[in-house]
């Protein structure tokens, strides 16, 4: 029998029992949709946490930790490894940078790095360019905002007090220096964090670039970045006001950057094998993935129970179909239909129920998932009065294609299995008994 004729045969029978088949498809749809939506919560939470971890970190970054600092030879050795994009040495200084612009001033962190490496890692700036001259610097996105005069400090203090009384918080974003920082000359002095807190002489620097906005709204970045060649200038300036040794003030942090996310793990293993103490955020992801894998398997298992319940309906429908059509099956067998063909026809019918139910379930699941991601934050906001749910982009439900494949396989598979016994029963029908049935 041609496949098209087999399909015709099956659809003809389905049309004959529309209501019964519809109800069975409905049960299969509900089971499958429940499975997908339930598991989508696991996928959604994992995605939210993953984004949370990745948004704050450069994913290709491998941190070198421990007291031991890398020597220049080691840095060169690491740079030669496959998939290493660069090794960035960030020199932090155990002193605060006090910057002045007119009557405004601010205190911030100061870091020094090789500007070329720094540029390679940080990429695009919000404004301006990376330094090309010794006295040029790049500042954080909020540097201008934190440059305040006395009048503004008083206003911020008042606004903060008022906000506190209302139970909220004021971030000072309405005050600060409003013009572009590019090309501005600032005077910079250092205040050592150890020993005597004397301020060094002021040094003049030109701002040539402003960093991108930090990934989190609550982060305030007013750091100053300059080329590591300035280390000696700063050290000399500090030595005039305090007697602390240079190695106590400056300390280096090394970060290795892989070329792609996929290469982080092999590179990490290689560095560990070579005796370096290294860490990457991907390790945290690995642990999280294991946890979520178990959670998702659990959710899919629970969802599968719903599919199994729906399969009872399919089993009943197919058993009824076989019983009702006993005489027809008898005639088919008598005129030469093979048992395999009869089994296939009934299996096709239960498979059709499974496939159709799954298709509708997938569409419904996407709709439910979409609606949940929109409605749940609003409901939670209304219930708890917290803004966090509405603004933090939490994914409550996510349906990746893998979940659709898994759920479809389970749903269609279960439909086929539940149709198998009735189909076998159909092949076992005795021709003589069937033909004797009353019309």
């Amino acid at each position, binding site marked *: 029998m041609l496949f098209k004729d087999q399909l015709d045969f099956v659809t003809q029978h389905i049309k*004959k029992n529309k209501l019964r088949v519809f109800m069975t498809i409905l049960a299969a749809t509900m089971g499958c949709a429940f499975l997908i939506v339930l598991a989508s919560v696991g996928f959604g939470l994992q995605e939210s946490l993953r984004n949370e971890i990745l948004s704050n970190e450069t994913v290709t970054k491998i941190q070198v930790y421990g007291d031991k600092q890398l020597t220049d030879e080691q840095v060169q050795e690491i740079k030669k490894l496959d998939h290493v994009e660069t090794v960035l040495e960030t020199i932090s200084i155990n002193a605060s940078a006090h910057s002045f612009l007119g009557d405004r001033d601010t205190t911030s962190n100061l870091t020094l790095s090789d500007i070329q490496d720094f540029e390679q890692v940080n990429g695009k700036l919000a404004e301006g360019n990376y330094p090309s001259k010794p006295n040029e610097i790049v500042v954080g996105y909020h540097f201008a905002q934190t440059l305040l005069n006395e009048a503004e400090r008083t206003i911020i203090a008042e606004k903060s007090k008022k906000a506190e009384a209302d139970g909220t918080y004021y971030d000072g974003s309405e005050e600060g220096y409003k013009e572009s920082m590019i090309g501005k000359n600032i005077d910079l002095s250092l205040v050592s964090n150890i020993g005597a807190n004397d301020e060094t002489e002021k040094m003049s620097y030109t701002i040539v670039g402003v960093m991108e906005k930090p990934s989190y709204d609550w982060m305030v970045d007013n750091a100053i970045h300059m080329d590591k060649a300035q280390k000696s200038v700063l050290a000399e300036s500090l030595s005039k006001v305090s007697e602390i040794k240079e190695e106590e003030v400056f300390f280096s942090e090394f970060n290795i950057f892989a070329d792609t996310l996929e290469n982080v793990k092999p590179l990490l293993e290689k560095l560990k094998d070579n005796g370096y103490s290294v860490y990457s955020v991907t390790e945290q992801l690995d642990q999280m993935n294991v946890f979520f894998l178990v959670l998702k398997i659990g959710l899919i298992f629970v969802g599968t129970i719903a599919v199994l319940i729906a399969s009872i309906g399919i089993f009943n429908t197919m058993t009824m179909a076989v019983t009702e059509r006993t005489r027809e099956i*008898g005639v088919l067998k008598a*005129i*030469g239909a093979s048992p395999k063909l009869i089994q296939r026809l009934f299996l096709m019918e239960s498979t059709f129920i499974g496939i159709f139910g799954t298709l509708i379930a997938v569409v419904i699941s996407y709709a439910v998932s979409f609606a949940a991601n929109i409605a749940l934050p609003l409901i939670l906001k209304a219930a708890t009065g917290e803004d966090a749910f509405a603004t933090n982009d939490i994914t409550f439900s996510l349906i990746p294609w893998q979940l659709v494949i898994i759920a479809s396989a389970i749903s269609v598979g279960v439909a086929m299995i539940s149709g198998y016994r009735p189909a076998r029963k159909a092949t076992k029908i005795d021709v*003589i008994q069937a033909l004797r049935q009353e019309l």
Partner: protein
Amino acid sequence: MIQVENLQHTFLIGKRGKEKQVPVLKGVNFAVNKGEIVAIVGKSGSGKSTLLQVLAGFMKAEQGSIKVNGKETVHLTETESAAFRLRHFGFIFQNFQLMPGLTAFENIELPLKLQGLRKAIRNEKVKKLMDKVGLTEVADHYPNELSGGQQQRVSIARALITNPPVLLADEPTGSLDSETEQDILLLIQSLNRELGLTFVIITHDEEVATIAHRRFRMYDGELVKEEA
């Protein structure tokens, strides 16, 4: 065409564990030649229906041999037996056994579908045959919209559509009035004459047996040849 030798079969009747053995075929021997009509007559319970079922491969005989066109059929598996039926036998049943959800045309087309023929070829064959047996006008009618005689004609057309060498008929006129019965018998005779088809007719109706070239009588599981 068909050679049956020493066919034996026993039914087990009664409760499990207390079954009684009832022999229904007690060493049946007969042969059917190509192009002849053979009638097997007998009372109810004589074993004639069992003989037809064994012949058609619906059930397996315990002992004996059936050769159709020289091929032994008693040892065929269920699947092989189905394929063999599709090629070698056409069936005419007492209750017509038409598919209620299919039109007359689709009922006749069914064996061709089982053979896997394409739609165009099927259409041509069915139309030709419907024309021959006088069913063109009712091609789109469903079985419940047809008279008994028309239903049996559809049933005969369905049996003929694959050009089988042998047609097995089980009480072909059992559900018909005497006038329609005559029509159907005439149709069988003309098909036999014009197309050289071989018929094996199982019946309890002596009238039906009159169209046969040869006649056997089944009596208590044994087959006896009678003069036609």
